[in-house]
């Protein structure tokens, strides 16, 4: 029986092969899904995949790219948007 604090599902479980050719159950912190582009759904780069309480401790400039729509749209979609705007 695991320790009481490990019986909740607030930690994710992984199976790791450990020395001695043994498979043991280990517990890891959960992580949220990676950030996605609001237009095409591609995974955004340059955005750390951390829990909100950890995100609070990170500087703003380290949490998204430093450009218009950074952290919302991928660079490809942003460029297309800018071109559309210019051609109106």
């Amino acid at each position, binding site marked *: 029986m695991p320790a009481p604090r490990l019986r909740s599902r607030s930690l994710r479980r992984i199976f790791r092969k450990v020395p001695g050719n043994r498979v043991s159950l280990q517990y890891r912190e959960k992580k949220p899904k990676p950030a996605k582009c609001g237009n095409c759904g591609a995974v955004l780069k340059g955005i750390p995949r951390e829990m909100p309480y950890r995100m609070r401790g990170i500087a703003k400039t380290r949490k998204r790219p*430093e*450009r*218009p729509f950074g952290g919302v749209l991928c*660079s490809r979609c*942003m*460029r297309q948007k*800018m*071109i559309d*705007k*210019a*051609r109106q």
Partner: protein
Amino acid sequence: MIEVGRLVVKIAGRDAGKKGVIIDVLDDKYILIDGETRRRKVNILHIEPLNQKIDIKKNVSHEDVAKALDELGLKVRITKPKPKTQKPKAKRKTPEQLRVQKEEKKKLRDIFRHKKKEQKSEVKQEATLEEKAGLSEEKKEGAKAEKPVEAKPKEKKTSSKKAERSKE
């Protein structure tokens, strides 16, 4: 489309969405722009040319660009040059100053060394004197006296134990 005086919008990077004018065409890949962005070399793929065109010469100054764009209602990015601050230079000591410094250090070192030596020697001498005076004899006597005291109870204990065993 790509020519000096053409208005462009930057579509990539931190300046995306900002307007500017082409000042110079460097080659078939790169141009020089100025305006809402700082004056910079830009890849043609990173800009979108607009329909407007203004009359400016090649490689005009930033002020002229600002005037031309002001009529169109565009605000030019003005970067203030940072005030130059002079760092205090690390002063090198002249050889004479270094010599003086060394001498002072030596003096201090010598003072402490002498003191330590004197203290040690004094202590040693005193100790030896005391021993000579008769402490050594006392110590020997004390040691002699102590040893039998320690030894006697052991004998007693052992003897008592033996006695107990014999009794049992």
